[in-house]
């Protein structure tokens, strides 16, 4: 019964190991797939007896409409399920566990109270079709969060409808498109700087626009002269992230807005880097006609391993009629949902936004208040400048301009055969999540570092020390980096193989 191979198979159902003897040459997976833990007859839930039915369901609905079975679905007990997913959780890096300076993603602390608030029965159990008079607290929360975002951004109206930043972008661009159309001059082009996130051109294409790329000037800044050069009567908008993905403030933004407005075009301000702007500069004052907020960044809703987020948009008055449906409004009977808005672009998702995330963002704004919010951006800017200064010797900055909440650094280790990816993988051995790498595309081998305001000085110093040690290692023993990570449960993963031979689901062994 016992054997070396067997002992390593803790957690694997013994029934299965009889069937499929493991190949001793293949290392055992860290955690079996839930399907591999399945044993026929087990269950993870007990259901109440049914004492009302006259006839069985398949007869009621018609047996010809029913399926025979659900082959392959797991059959596991509740304790197995708990252990399986807890073991999986231990294979993740996470902001709550590690320094996570992922540039442009704003991996800041997510207050745990906010998750509790979202779980209050009055919010969590609220069905979206509940009559408005029985959902006044939720509607007021929506209205209050809209009001707070208007104040923070200097915009005239806010919609919380979009599910994510990219959906906010699409909403904003469709609004701009509708506005031009309503004036009788449909326009077909959007200008996007070469430093932009990939979602900007992708959203523009989806909104039916052709993309014109604007080149950054020598200092990495977007210049009004470049926008003037690209301007025509067919340009609907400029879509620009400020601060840019280089972490620098677009100082000519107001002049750029003026050039656009002179030509009847709109300024779309991508709020991906809003964490630098709280109490520093309002998009409304920059001349923005549309801005999108990423609540999962600046307003601290958890990233969830890739969503759910929330991507509200703010607009100036002239674009308000085009906002998505419905709008929360107040009448004599209290708050209600207004759907009678003939110019609206419609809906991009069901219901009223990712409400559970809106609850968290609102709680965050209440906790910080005006004074706290202004401190957020100032501390984030302090941290980014501090890290840039401390790392200057071995990782020079991609730009000499002052940086805001994040900095883009470079290195000259390629001469030693060490890539940015190697540096990133080696950082994992120090218990630090790597920065965003190879972005923005205009900086060769970029390391984009966003420390955020919630990391302590000690953690910033530990990061600096790790980066310096990695630099020294690269000079002495580059192979150490090429082979990293060394201390994680897995060695470096072959991503190319996954794409060459896609295996996208588990299937029972034949």
């Amino acid at each position, binding site marked *: 019964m016992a054997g070396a191979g067997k002992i390593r198979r803790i957690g694997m159902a013994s029934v299965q190991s009889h069937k499929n003897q493991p190949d001793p040459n293949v290392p055992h997976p860290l955690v079996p*797939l839930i399907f591999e833990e399945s044993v026929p007859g087990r269950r993870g839930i007990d259901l109440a007896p049914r004492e009302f039915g006259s006839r069985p369901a398949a007869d009621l609905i018609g047996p010809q409409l029913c399926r025979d079975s659900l082959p392959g679905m797991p059959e596991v007990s509740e304790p197995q399920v708990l252990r399986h997913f807890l073991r999986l959780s231990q294979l993740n890096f996470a902001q709550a566990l590690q320094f996570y300076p992922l540039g442009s993603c704003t991996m800041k602390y997510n207050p745990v109270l906010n998750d509790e608030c979202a779980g209050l029965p009055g919010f969590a159990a609220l069905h979206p079709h509940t009559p408005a008079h029985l959902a006044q607290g939720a509607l007021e929360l929506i209205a209050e969060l809209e009001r707070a975002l208007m104040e923070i951004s200097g915009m005239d109206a806010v919609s919380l409808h979009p599910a994510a930043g990219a959906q906010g972008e699409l909403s904003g661009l469709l609004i701009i498109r509708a506005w031009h159309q309503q004036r009788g001059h449909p326009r077909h082009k959007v200008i996007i700087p070469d430093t932009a996130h*990939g979602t900007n051109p992708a959203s523009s294409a989806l909104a039916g626009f052709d993309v014109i790329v604007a080149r950054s000037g020598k200092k990495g800044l977007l210049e009004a002269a470049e926008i003037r050069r690209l301007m025509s009567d067919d340009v609907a908008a400029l879509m620009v992230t400020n601060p840019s993905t280089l972490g620098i403030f677009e100082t000519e933004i107001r002049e750029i807005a003026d050039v656009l407005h002179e030509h009847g075009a709109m300024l779309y301000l991508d709020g991906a880097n809003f964490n630098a702007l709280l109490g520093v500069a309002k998009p409304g004052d920059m001349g923005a006609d549309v801005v999108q907020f990423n609540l999962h960044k600046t307003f601290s809703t958890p990233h969830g391993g890739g*969503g759910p987020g929330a991507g509200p948009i703010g607009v100036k008055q002239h674009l308000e009629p085009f906002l998505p449906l419905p709008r929360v409004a107040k009448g004599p009977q209290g708050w209600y949902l207004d759907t009678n808005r003939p110019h609206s672009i419609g809906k991009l998702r069901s219901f009223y936004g990712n409400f559970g995330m809106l609850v968290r963002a609102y709680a965050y704004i209440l906790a910080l208040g005006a004074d706290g919010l202004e401190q957020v951006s100032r501390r984030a800017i302090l941290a980014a400048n501090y890290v840039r200064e401390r790392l200057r010797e071995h990782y020079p900055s991609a730009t000499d301009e002052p940086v805001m909440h994040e900095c883009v650094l470079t290195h000259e280790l390629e001469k030693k055969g060490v890539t940015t990816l190697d540096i990133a993988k080696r950082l994992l051995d120090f218990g630090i999540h790597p920065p965003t790498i190879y972005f923005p595309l205009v900086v060769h081998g970029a390391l984009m570092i966003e420390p955020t305001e919630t990391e302590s000085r000690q953690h910033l110093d530990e990061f600096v020390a790790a980066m310096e040690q990695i630099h020294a290692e690269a000079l002495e023993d580059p192979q150490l980096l090429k082979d990293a990570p060394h201390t994680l449960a897995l060695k470096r993963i072959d991503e190319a193989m996954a794409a060459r031979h896609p295996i996208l689901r588990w299937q029972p062994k034949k």
Partner: protein
Amino acid sequence: MRFLPQTDAEIADMLTTIGVPSIDDLIAHVPAPLRARATIKLAPGMTEAQVAAEMQSLAARNRGATDFRSFLGAGYYRHYVPAAVRAIVARSEFATSYTPYQPEASQGTLQAIFEFQTLITQLTGLEVANASMYDGASAAAEAVLMAHRILPRRNVVALSRGLWPDYRLAVRTYLSALSHLEIEEIPFDPNVGTIAIDSLRAVAGDRLLCTLVGYPNMFGIVEPLGAVSEIAHQAGGLSISATAEPLALGLLKAPGEIGADIAVGEGQSFGLPPQFGGPGVGFFAGRLAHVRQMPGRLVGETRDREGRRAFCLTLATREQHIRRERATSNICTNHSLCALAVTVYLSLMGARGLRELAEHNVEIAHYAADRLASAGIKRRFSGPFFNEFVVDLGDVPSALQAAERNGVLAGLPLGPDYPELDGTIVICATEMNQPADIDLLCEALSKGV
């Protein structure tokens, strides 16, 4: 402030390192007119206790969430959420991680998504599912866009009127910039509640891009997806199914089994509370031959350098961060944490649990329909239904008010979205409704009618 660790001394020290006297010097390059107007005029910050009290008071003003026996459905569903689901999704290791770009540090999220993808293929009977979408409505819109990438020369979208209004609106909004696409809204049979097959045939010509029907639909009715798919395929188009109540797939034939080329839907029923409509999670499945036209993230199996099984994001050349304006979609992230909830939920349920719960829902809903019928409240449609059905009430506002006075939220009025169904409501009964609730519903509604 409790979230901000730097002390004054540390700030001073950091500023010395940087070589500036104050933080304001770090933002001095931001144009002065902007800085001068940037002050935020909101209330001062609160203690945690104050925030908690404020949020509790807002939550308490949503009486509809807690004080009624509810029969609301129509796109979002009330189901029991096992504690194990909440316990797992509350883990900071999952909740506070980012999109798994560094696979060595994200195996937990990646493996869970791989399991999610597998479960969705099992439910839908299709070969490949993505890592999830925002919700069912946007997934439906993205499905039409995907169909258009597969068949770029075709341009007629046959959109069932029996699809949820939000889904139809999302499709229209997503397609609004693509003026060459024509949307034909196909009516429903006024007696049966399924798609009007003759009307569908009339548009199923050589320009037909795809059909899109609810499975089940807005009225809880099980559409003849097999017949619809056959019409789509005969015309050379694609068949798309959209499911807002995925529990139905525990009992009904899998969409892929009866001809759907793309099956999308909403996963909220599987372990996510209603939360006033979001976040839920969209699912998206299709055929392997079309995988390169799929939107969204995909997780694939691979190996690490020692040959150990591992998972990573894959086929990213479809995506916006590589392809930019030529990407298959602008979607950047998915609804990963919600997909995790679905994965935990379905793991607990298993094949048998899911089937039994689906049967339970069918039986309680039919029990409710029968009870109402005996009280003189008749179903509008004769088609087979899953856990919701449409009834005629006549004067809907007074019937609903009467029900509310009796502590019952009886259902959603259809008149505002379907003028032809004025006077009706859609009633949803799930395992959350006890037979006693149904007695109360009957009593309340028969009083109002």
